[in-house]
């Protein structure tokens, strides 16, 4: 019984990780930019919500409203990121890493300055702040539902719509796509905006689960990087499976072998990479 609860909780963490990581993996796939500011974007969502609603529980409608506002903020920040990395196109990963890392430090320090350096936590919205049968937080079920909805929507867009087809084409062969008269730059911009919006949204979604504090940006960035490395870069399916796997490693894995809790995450990552060096769904170039 306890282990079932633990495994279910792993799905909740996996759902949050997916919303966080899917944007990171698509930005990498399409622009060949590893956005190290992704964790800071997540943090921006949490602090934005904290500034607006504080730490007391609010109604579900207000909470959803704040989450939508976070999406808007993500679009704006994504526009800024896109403009910042454009001059560095073709300058290699190290320059881009330094730039996005610098942006991450600026953004996270700005957030800490605008609130304070202390510990904060968002409360789950009213109605979801209780526990189911007195033993499982209702909000975590809502996180799973939200994660599934976003995963479903992302798959649908990528597999069934023209926009998704353009993005897939831009990943596979940007030159050929450009030759057919499509503005590849616009496709890239769209993906950066969507990825950043999802990251900031994830910050609100995860606010009641992970505390807001200095250092949160690096912590979630590392988790997201592990998810996409395990899942395979530039693959939505990989991000989904990677997120679910890492979610289970962090919960069920820890409950089964608590002695190894500190190393488990990296052990699993190493094992997956030994087995499939490009990740579960990655394509070897």
């Amino acid at each position, binding site marked *: 019984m*306890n*282990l079932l*609860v*633990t495994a279910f*909780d792993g799905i909740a*963490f996996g759902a949050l990780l997916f919303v966080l990581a899917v944007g990171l993996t698509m930005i990498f796939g399409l622009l060949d930019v590893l956005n190290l500011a992704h964790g800071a974007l997540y943090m921006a969502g949490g602090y934005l919500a904290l500034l607006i609603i504080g*730490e*007391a529980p609010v109604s579900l409608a207000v909470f959803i409203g704040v989450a939508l506002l976070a999406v808007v903020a993500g679009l704006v920040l994504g526009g800024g990121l896109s403009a910042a990395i454009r001059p560095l196109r073709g300058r290699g990963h190290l320059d881009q*890493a330094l730039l996005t*890392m*610098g942006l991450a*430090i600026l953004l996270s320090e700005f957030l800490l300055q605008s609130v*304070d*350096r*202390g*510990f*904060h*936590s968002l*409360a789950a919205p009213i109605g979801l702040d209780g*526990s189911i*049968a*007195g*033993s*499982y*937080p209702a909000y975590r079920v809502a996180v799973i539902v939200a994660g599934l909805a976003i995963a479903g929507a992302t798959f649908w867009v990528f597999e069934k719509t023209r926009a998704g087809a353009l993005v897939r084409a831009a990943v596979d062969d940007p030159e050929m796509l450009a030759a057919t008269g499509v503005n590849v730059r616009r496709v890239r911009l769209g993906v950066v905006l969507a990825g950043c919006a999802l990251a900031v949204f994830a910050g609100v979604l995860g606010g009641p*689960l*992970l*505390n*807001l*504090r*200095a*250092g949160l940006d*690096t*912590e979630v960035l590392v988790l997201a990087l592990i998810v996409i490395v395990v899942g395979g870069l530039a693959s939505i399916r990989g991000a989904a499976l990677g997120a679910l796997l890492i979610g289970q490693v*962090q*919960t*069920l894995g*820890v*409950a089964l072998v*608590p002695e190894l*809790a*500190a190393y488990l995450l990296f052990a699993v990552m190493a094992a997956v990479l030994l087995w499939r060096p490009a990740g579960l769904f990655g394509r070897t170039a």
Partner: protein
Amino acid sequence: MRYAVLALLLLSASACGGGAMQGAQDDSTVKIGAIISQTGVYSALGDDMEAAMRLYLTEKGDKLGGKRAELITADDAGNPETGQQKAKQLTLENKVDVITGLIASPVAVAVAKEAAAQKTPVVIANAGADALGGPGVFRVSYTNYMHGYAAGKYAAEAYGKDGAVLMGADYSAGTETLKGFADGFAKAGGAAPIKQILTPFGKTQNFQPYLSQIPAEAKFLYVFYAGGEAITFAKNFKQFGYDQKVKLLTCQNITDEDVLQAIGADAEGITSVGLYSPALDNAENAAFVSKWKAKTGKNPSVVALQSWDAMQLIDKAVAAGGDLSEALAKVGDITSPRGTFKLDADKHNPVQNWYARTYEGGANKVIATIPPDPAS
């Protein structure tokens, strides 16, 4: 790489600040070097620490022991190497008379080593590592062992003599506190704990997998978590319904002022053992709480209290005159908002009362006083 960039920034910042100080020895001024985490994970505690020290100085008209006092702060960023560097700078360039502050234990250990080399006394305002203390090192906070020991003695009286499960973060503060608990519990006639659950320090975002390991025969749980982990633990414990399954006793950090607001309603009813509560009923405390509230709008945290007392200890030692290191050892009873305490003769650690406190309606209400062991 990110840390390398940060370290470079810090280095250049400190290099700019250092040159301007002149090192003339002046007998009418006492210089205090405070090594505080102003950035990094402990920076929230650092803010309280500096605010309390400055509040004390303001109260005393910027004088300690009748001399003009100058407080020079330096940022350790939670890093021992940085701390040691700052200690060197404070002693050699700024010629401080005493070093204080010190939040994280690894930083305190490094700084104490450097200060000993420069023959400058150290007053620790927070770091709890058991090994600290001795010649030239004075501590107004607590040792981790004593923190747990007091809770162990209380638990044997209030929670029963068996069925104890211990849980904490797997680093020195966690394991030392839990060891102290087991010893205090045994001293008061308690049986050996039936299980000890250690969780990776600083990486645990979800305690459900660990809480699920509490054996069914457990009668109560004693836990040590601080900062962000304290928030996550308190919320998880309540939201996964463990408050209905097992009684809980915690270290003081879980219901300290830095985390209470973030924990919110889930903190209600948590009982902890700590060296202070803003609700303590004595004149010193009433004055301290009202001054602190006027300045910050909040209740004072344990770190704020300890930092206030660090200045109080230095104040008294300077007033006594003579060699500061010797004077610090001879201060004797200190009338603190936590109640009267003194430092022991050997290791210069506080001999003090501990309090069992239950968090109710926005305050840590004191429900029992745990006096120090005659021998310790």
